[in-house]
């Protein structure tokens, strides 16, 4: 009886310990990826070489399949497996192209990590402040653990979530023209970004 009463008390430090460990694992994963990207940006000779070599580490840390699914939202379930696969490919190209276009060889923001918080089991939010070309940006990285590996599933810049922003656009397309409209919007965005 006593042990049953004491069990929650005994388990509490253990659970807090687990939460701390997961926070640390996610933080280390993010920090090592940022360090890897920074090394590439600093060592790149020109913009083309930089964009080509930065893609691999970005694809490793960003979970594009989850991001695509969440960005499309309710329309995702209506897509055929082939369309889902195509959508992930297009969305990956779109995000990588949009964000690597901002990179300049040798020019990196200074990042400051704030204490992370575990929002649910297997989910960690890491708030950061980036100082880039004289402007300060608040960026929150939402990370999730899948099969023992941590990856980024959403980025919140100045309070605006990437997934929420794309979801509002794709959902409007889906409501007006169904799955074909979603796929068309994706193909158009990728074609325009070229």
């Amino acid at each position, binding site marked *: 009886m006593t042990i049953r009463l004491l069990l929650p008390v005994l388990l509490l430090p253990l659970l807090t310990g687990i939460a701390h460990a997961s926070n640390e694992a996610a933080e280390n994963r993010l920090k090592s990826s940022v360090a890897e990207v920074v090394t590439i940006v600093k060592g790149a000779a020109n913009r083309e070489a930089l964009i080509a070599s930065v893609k691999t580490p970005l694809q490793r840390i960003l979970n594009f399949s989850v991001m695509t699914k969440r960005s499309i939202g309710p329309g995702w379930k209506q897509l055929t497996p082939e369309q889902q696969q195509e959508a992930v490919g297009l969305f990956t190209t779109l995000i990588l192209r949009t964000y690597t276009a901002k990179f300049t060889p040798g020019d990196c923001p*200074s990042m400051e990590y704030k204490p992370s918080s575990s929002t649910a089991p297997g989910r960690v939010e890491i708030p950061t402040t980036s100082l880039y070309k004289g*402007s300060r940006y608040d960026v929150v990285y939402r990370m999730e653990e899948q099969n023992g590996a941590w990856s980024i599933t959403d980025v919140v810049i100045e309070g605006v*979530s990437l997934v929420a922003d794309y979801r509002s656009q794709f959902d409007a397309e889906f409501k007006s023209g169904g799955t074909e409209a979603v796929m068309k919007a994706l193909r158009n965005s990728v074609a325009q970004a070229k």
Partner: protein
Amino acid sequence: MKHSKLELMTGLFVLLGLAAVAYLTIKLGTGSLIGGNTYAVESRFANAGGIHPGCSVLLSGVTVGRVEDVRMDPSDYSAIVTLRLTSLLKLPSDSMASVKTSGLIGDKYIALSPGADEASLKPGDRITLTESAVDLESLIGKMAFGSVDKEKNTKENSGKPNP
């Protein structure tokens, strides 16, 4: 005798009117007028500025619930907002909740956008994918004081390269 009966009736009528006003105030204020069964889910915001119990919860512009409670999580100082939603609404577990304002100076409300997960949110579950209230003042502040940061950054850069 007849006179006092009339007075009594008037008194009762006034009391009934007051009771009706009180009932409506409470019901409208907390939003319990959403018919049928309801369930509660929590959502975690970094900043729930302007949200208070009774605020509307909208999905595609339709009221699907009300804010029941707003409290602070002492472990990380985030805001935990309890939403009471109509049980007719089945939300995928990766749904998002955002703090929005109707118009420029309008009331704050919570906007829900459903996700794509097969699993649905169960009563008591927590929405972790959220967007907090956009702080206009701090954005204006950043624009106004951006030049100060710039100077500091240039000075820092002259000594050592940025990491």
